[in-house]
């Protein structure tokens, strides 16, 4: 695979962003994910690495770098360019996980199902079918701890956000916004179209890894009944199907 085209620019004086494009596409996001993997646990001066849909932002320790180099931005920029130019996409250094997420598509958990049905002239059953048949990629995590932006949703159910967000979307709500799908990890205001709910806890401060998702995860939704939802025991459920 040939080296990709990209731009590097400062995001303030202690961060830098690499941009691979400006649209939501799996191809572009794969470049982000690849570079993200290369950088993880590698550089001593890096404080955070934040994937976006088509960007990767690196928060660096300006003062530590400046104790050794004349310009922190120049140093990090050249490190990144070296990495990108010497590693091709075929060398993925980190396995991608596949996660199964149980979702109850019951009408009481789906306040926006009707809106999608009207918008696309489909039945609720068709919405569910189209939502569960795809395997989604986690493009990025942001907005809330553990809110994974996943895509790409089938065009036949892709629906614009609510024009007026709800003041409260319950934790576990599964929604669609445009071509993205996601799950609210906490009670929160929100504008996504809600079609179901998962009994899983996506964000748990008591766990050593408090967030269930990781950028790059592959995700499949699995329908459960209302009774199964009520009876669900999170501790006995392991979402991760494989690490391959």
């Amino acid at each position, binding site marked *: 695979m040939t080296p990709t085209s990209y731009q590097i620019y400062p995001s303030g*004086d202690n961060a830098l962003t690499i941009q691979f494009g400006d649209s939501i596409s799996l191809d572009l996001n794969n470049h982000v994910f690849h570079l993200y993997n290369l950088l993880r646990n590698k550089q001593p001066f890096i404080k*955070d690495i*934040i994937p976006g849909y088509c960007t990767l932002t690196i928060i660096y320790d300006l003062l530590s770098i400046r104790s050794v180099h004349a310009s922190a931005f120049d140093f990090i920029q050249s490190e990144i360019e070296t990495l990108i130019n010497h590693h091709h996409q075929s060398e993925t250094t980190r396995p991608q996980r596949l996660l199964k997420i149980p979702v109850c598509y019951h009408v009481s958990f789906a306040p926006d199902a009707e809106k999608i049905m009207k918008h696309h002239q489909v039945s609720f059953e068709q919405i569910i079918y189209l939502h569960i048949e795809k395997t989604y990629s986690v493009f990025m995590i942001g907005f809330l701890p553990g809110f994974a932006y996943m895509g790409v949703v089938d065009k036949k159910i892709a629906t614009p956000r609510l024009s007026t967000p709800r003041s409260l979307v319950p934790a576990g709500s599964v929604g669609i916004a445009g071509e993205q799908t996601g799950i609210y990890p906490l009670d929160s205001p929100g504008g996504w179209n809600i079609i179901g709910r998962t009994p899983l806890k996506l964000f748990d401060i008591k766990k050593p890894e408090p967030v269930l998702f990781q950028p790059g995860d592959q995700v499949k939704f699995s329908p459960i009944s209302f009774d199964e939802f009520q009876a669900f025991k999170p501790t006995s459920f392991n979402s991760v199907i494989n690490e391959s």
Partner: protein
Amino acid sequence: MKAGIADSIQDEGRFGFQHLGINPNGAMDQTAMKIANALVGNDLREPVVELSFPASSIQFEKTALISLSGADFSAMLNGAAVGNNKALIINRGDELKFKKSLLGSFAYLAVHGGLRIAQWLGSASTNTKAKAGGWQGRFLKKGDEIEFIKDLSRLGETRALSWRVNVSDFYSGNNIIRCVEGREWTDLEKVSQDQFKKKPFIITQHSDRMGYRLKGPALKRKNKTELISSAVTFGTVQLFPDGQLIILMADHQTTGGYPRVAQVITADRSNLVQLKQGDEILFSMCSLAEAEKALVYQAKVLQQIKTACAFNLREIL
């Protein structure tokens, strides 16, 4: 303690988890936090109590060496005024109250030896969204009892130590806030760029640890395409569709989709956060090199302060 409206435990921030949507939080005025720590001989990154006005009233249960830095809320120790940027010896029964907001928005209380605060993901900073970190993941309230790690009984009677730290290197006394250009700076119409650089922007009442919302001339972009979400940081100046600006602060969301027109330089964060509602900001563009240089200089001065304080404290501790 009697509760203030938004007092919390903070440190340098929680880094390494923004890819999971966990924002770093941390002290709004990192410089004041570090000075407060230096004054009591702490590691500069030791967790502190961040106070905003109206601030908590504090009653001390045992002897300690403490300090206050940052905003001046007219601190009264047992009814007598004590100034900022000094070390104070306090004893059991002493009371600290904050009478009036004289200057600035965020004050910092440091205790020699540190506070007994459980870490979450390697940091003591408070994340109120996640309800984790700091003191039970929330702002402090009446009745909260925070322990001091160290037991100091030989400090003597309650008094302020005679020396104080000069903080003039960090606070310009003017409202000029330096920025580097944001990614979407060139998207702005020339008229709007000029307005950004020349016109004052007022800090509105819709301002808190998440961001300071500004009021000023409505800025316009040359093209109105929606942007795809990407990471934002403390100091990112975002442009809302209505043409108004917000400066993201310590509790910012990790990602956003609004145009990033500029980025406040790290060295000017302290000046910025200490401004209050109704204050005017004058933005001034600078280069990345200048921004880096300014922070390197500040770090040098902080190190000198730390050394000087340690020297002064050697007889007491």
